[in-house]
């Protein structure tokens, strides 16, 4: 029979843990809201860029640019976005699993791969699995700044144009909605041609749209806008990751708090029973003593 005092001690420690997990849940909720706002605020930029690209495509401009050209893949780059901290359910492990799948595929094809990982968790997990990491980032928390992401994008653009890499994949956790986030590997370079996805949706839509003039010329705008479009996509990956991490932590901590409550309930029941047994035992002893004295 467990003794009452030990049960009480355990109950108290579980209560403390519940306090911590509940606080973490609240913090994650607040951070999630902020991250979400940032993500929504960033959407305008992407949409406007897409609009301009679409208009350039609508003019019938021949979309040829080094960033759009697909080359035979020999050297690839992979960027894996994970969190710096744990206690967020499957967030980090799912991204790592996705990255391992992709890296396994590349090494199977005997390709040279440049691996960049953001987040302590991902770095440790991938290193444990025997992956050589070429570049590490720790600074991205729940508020990735564009000025911090831009240099990374810049260096990828440069190595793509110089031919040091033929393809760039980003492994991150896409935020679909609050109930669903999925770890995905997205190919950012070569850039998908803007005509591929958008014009198919509205084949006749452009004809009615306004006729645009271009200053100085459509090609020169295209030349500038494609890198910007890549940067904004890369930035979106970071933002999505940040939002997903907070959601994952929120959900994980909510589960932990609920579990702690369940354990406390169970421990309380056992504690009460143990206490009652102890009291009954003591009464029996007293009664036994009284009986013995009577004789």
């Amino acid at each position, binding site marked *: 029979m467990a003794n009452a005092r030990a049960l009480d001690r355990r109950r108290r420690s579980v209560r403390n843990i519940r306090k911590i997990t509940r606080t973490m849940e609240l913090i994650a909720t607040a951070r999630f809201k902020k991250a979400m706002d940032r993500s929504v605020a960033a959407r305008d930029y992407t949409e406007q860029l897409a609009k301009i690209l679409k208009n350039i495509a609508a003019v019938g401009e021949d979309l040829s640019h080094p960033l759009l050209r697909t080359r035979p893949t020999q050297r690839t780059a992979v960027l894996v976005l994970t969190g710096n901290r744990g206690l967020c359910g499957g967030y980090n492990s799912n991204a790592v699993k996705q990255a391992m799948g992709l890296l396994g595929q590349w090494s199977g094809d005997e390709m040279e791969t440049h691996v960049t990982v953001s987040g302590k968790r991902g770095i440790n997990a991938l290193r444990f699995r025997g992956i050589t990491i070429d570049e590490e980032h720790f600074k991205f928390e729940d508020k990735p700044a*564009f000025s911090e992401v831009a240099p990374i994008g810049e260096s990828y653009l440069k190595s793509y144009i110089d031919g040091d890499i033929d393809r760039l994949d980003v492994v991150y956790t896409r935020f679909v909605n609050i109930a669903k986030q999925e770890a995905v590997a997205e190919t950012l370079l070569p850039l998908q041609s803007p005509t591929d996805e958008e014009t198919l949706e509205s084949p006749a839509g452009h004809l009615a749209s306004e006729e645009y003039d271009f200053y100085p010329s459509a090609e020169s705008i295209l030349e500038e*806008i494609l890198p910007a479009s890549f940067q904004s996509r890369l930035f979106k990956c970071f933002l999505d990751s940040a939002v997903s991490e907070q959601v994952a932590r929120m959900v994980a901590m909510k589960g932990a708090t609920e579990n702690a409550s369940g354990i406390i309930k169970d421990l309380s029941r056992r504690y009460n029973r143990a206490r009652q047994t102890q009291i009954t035992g003591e009464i029996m002893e007293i009664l036994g003593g009284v009986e013995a004295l009577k004789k």
Partner: protein
Amino acid sequence: MSTTSSQKLIRCVIVTPEQTVLDTKAAGVVLPLDDGSRGIAAGHAPFIGRLGAGEVKLLGVAGGNGGETTIRTFIAGGFTEVGNNEVTVITQQASDSGSIDPVEAKVELERLLAQKAVGDEQINALLSAESTARAKLRAAQKPKK
């Protein structure tokens, strides 16, 4: 420049990757295009243009007490789309011109001017950084109205 309530206004939106910096109506907008400034008023013909570093000036924005103000925002290059009585400025970096410190901007420009670049790529990068710094300094030095 004065405007009356009957004058048509044009909507101006400035977006950066992080947020929408500005979304307001103005009587006129001056855009720093790649090759020089261009004034836009309501009903301007649609165009898409490349922007250089410089100031976006919004003239005749309705102020708090019935008056009008001018909003000046420094941008470091980008794109603009004009059409549908709307000016959209897409830039990677935008800041209120009034908040730029002229001393700091000058130091930055001098630092860049002192730098040496080798090879086409570096020279081009340095030149564009210099012109951005110059535009920034110009924006900072303009008297505040």
